[in-house]
């Protein structure tokens, strides 16, 4: 009679088998539907440990997976790898943009989670819904490649660009994913799994109104600057006149001093991604400073400082601008 149990051998997990004759033909398969010869056995090696035989896998046993042990081609034991019981604790900590109204050609969302997440859930758990609860089908870009930051806590979600770009079949045949004047919600289902395989503690959503098209360059020259008094640590405040992309805002704005040195301080993105401020760590000097804007900075519709999302060749004002930083000069008074 063969007995199989979870055990350890040489510092790793194994399946310990007792009561086997020497030289027995032992294999392990994931699952229970093991048809002889149809699938390769699980990679691993058999080690003798006293009177026992240990199956040490080359790839670690997976929690929640069932394993079948065969001896001489016959099923001898079935073991289930236990899944640790833990409460769901991960949640959505932010959905960007936070602007109340987005353009009808909105391109991108960012979803922040409180813990690292698993890949492979976005297509099934992130959706756009109307106020009546119906799903806006085909709005989001279906992609095999989920766009995570390195720590797997921020997910970038794109609306289907083929439906936003003019002249493409997607836009011409199906139209924008959104409709001007028709509010919608971005919904993150609680079935989204964190890196430990657990669902979210609670689902999350953010509601938006939908405005008209936004097809203009991001134009830093039109921004309003509230210049702080010299000798203080009052913030430099910049107001954009329209919401900009949260992810890019966090890295595309800098302030440089008269010698070109970066002004150190605490930067903050304002409500609705419509403004930005920098509180310097040392008082402003009464000299010329520069607000430096990187050319890749985009608005919510993917228009950047250097180019519009799709350029109408008949409109000279849509022509691409130099892909170099734009500087705005100011002097604390």
């Amino acid at each position, binding site marked *: 009679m063969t007995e199989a149990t979870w055990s350890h051998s040489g510092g790793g997990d194994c399946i310990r088998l007792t009561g086997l004759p020497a030289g027995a033909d032992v294999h392990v398969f994931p699952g229970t539907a093991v048809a002889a010869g149809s699938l390769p056995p699980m990679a691993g090696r058999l080690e003798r440990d006293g009177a026992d035989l240990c199956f040490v896998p080359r790839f670690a046993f997976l929690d929640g997976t069932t394993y079948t042990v065969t001896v001489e081609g016959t099923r001898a034991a079935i073991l289930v790898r236990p899944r640790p019981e833990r409460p769901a604790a991960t949640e959505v900590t932010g959905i960007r943009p936070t602007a109340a109204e987005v353009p009808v050609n909105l391109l991108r969302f960012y979803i922040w989670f409180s813990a690292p997440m698993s890949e492979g859930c976005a297509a099934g758990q992130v959706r756009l819904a109307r106020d009546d609860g119906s799903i806006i089908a*085909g709005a989001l870009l*279906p992609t095999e490649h989920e766009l995570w930051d390195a720590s797997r806590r*921020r997910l970038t979600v794109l609306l289907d660009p*083929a439906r936003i770009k003019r002249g493409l079949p997607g836009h011409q045949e199906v139209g924008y994913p959104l409709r001007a004047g028709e509010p919608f919600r971005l919904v993150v289902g609680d079935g989204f799994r964190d*890196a430990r395989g657990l669902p979210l503690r609670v689902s999350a959503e953010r509601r938006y109104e939908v405005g008209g098209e936004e097809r203009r360059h991001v134009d830093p020259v039109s921004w309003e600057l509230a210049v702080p008094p010299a000798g203080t640590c009052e913030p430099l405040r910049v107001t954009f006149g329209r919401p900009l992309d949260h*992810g890019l805002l966090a*890295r595309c704005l800098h302030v440089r001093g008269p010698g070109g040195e970066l002004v150190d301080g605490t930067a903050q993105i304002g409500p609705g991604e419509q403004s930005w401020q920098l509180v310097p760590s040392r008082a402003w000097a009464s000299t010329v400073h520069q607000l430096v804007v990187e050319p890749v900075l985009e608005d919510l519709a993917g228009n950047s400082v250097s180019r519009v999302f799709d350029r109408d*060749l008949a409109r000279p004002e849509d022509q691409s601008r130099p892909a170099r930083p734009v500087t705005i000069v100011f002097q604390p008074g």
Partner: protein
Amino acid sequence: MSEFGLEPGRVSLRSAGPITFGPAGILFLADNAAATVFAVDVADPGPAGGAEPFDLEDVDARVGSFLGCEPGDVVIKDMAVHPLSRNVYLSVQRGRGEAAQPVLIRISVADGAIDDVPLDEVSFAAVAIGDAPGEDDERLDSTLPLGDEGEEMQFGTFKIRVLRQPIRTATVTDMAYAGGALLIAGLSNEEFSSRLRRIPFPFTAGVTGSSLEIFHVSHGKWETAAPIRAFVPYDGGASILASYTCTPVVHFPLADLTDGAKAVGRTVAELGAVNQPLDMVSFVQDGEEYLLVANSAHGLVKIACRDIDSQPPLTEPQQPVGVPRETKDLQGIRRLANLGGSYVLALQSDDAGRLHLRSLKTASL
């Protein structure tokens, strides 16, 4: 392999991504989590392959069984065929979340046997490919690591280990070797760009290659840029055909990819609405070169290279939609690779979501 700058050592793969073969049977592996491409001598054991077709049913279940997991825990990220032995290589993620493990699988074309390619003692070279955070981009996301990753930091009277990782990342969507260089297409998780990176191979320390944005014109009215989803070199590597996330198929000469120049490709076809290109491959039939495009919604599209060269830029937004093409009623094809000679190998999903390797006879395509 020293002539290619490969040195023996351990490839610490953090994630499974696109793969493609380069010169002398060297396999390029993209590791998106590590923002690195590895060039690995896979030391393929097989003899030179024949010309027979190769089919394998339930490849996800077979690979899963070998890896000790259910088919649902096998994510096949990419497929490549060794140019000499014709053995099939799969870039596989086994498990999900913190249990996820990247594995390079080799399937013998002789008998369908499955094995993994150990990467702990191989000849390899590596190059960083991330849109490296700029010198001014200090954004790092701090988390508490589960293992011994990260750095130890002092907080008052106690120390904790903190892992700080970049927020801005680039995800490789496709790679190809042409003209002595590795070409890499990718998606940024922030800006919407169409960058194609060209890294000379052998890799040279400190050289991360050139990167430029390729624009294309839709119907003579709109100039636009978008991430390249899949691309294929043809005409001996002189030309590139790229398909975009927003479905135009665009041609550009490889010679156009020079630093500092604005590259504008020629839109030669549209793949249709609510559809994503998934993979592309070139093959020769009756002495002529053809391209196959696998799509998420439409069937397999076959295009003759000579038609691409003679196709004027698309100027009409309505039908017809560009270069002549035949659409084969083959659904569910996710990846393509040239099996050499008379066959193209397809990774095909059936209605139940199970994956199979199927040889498509080029003479019948």
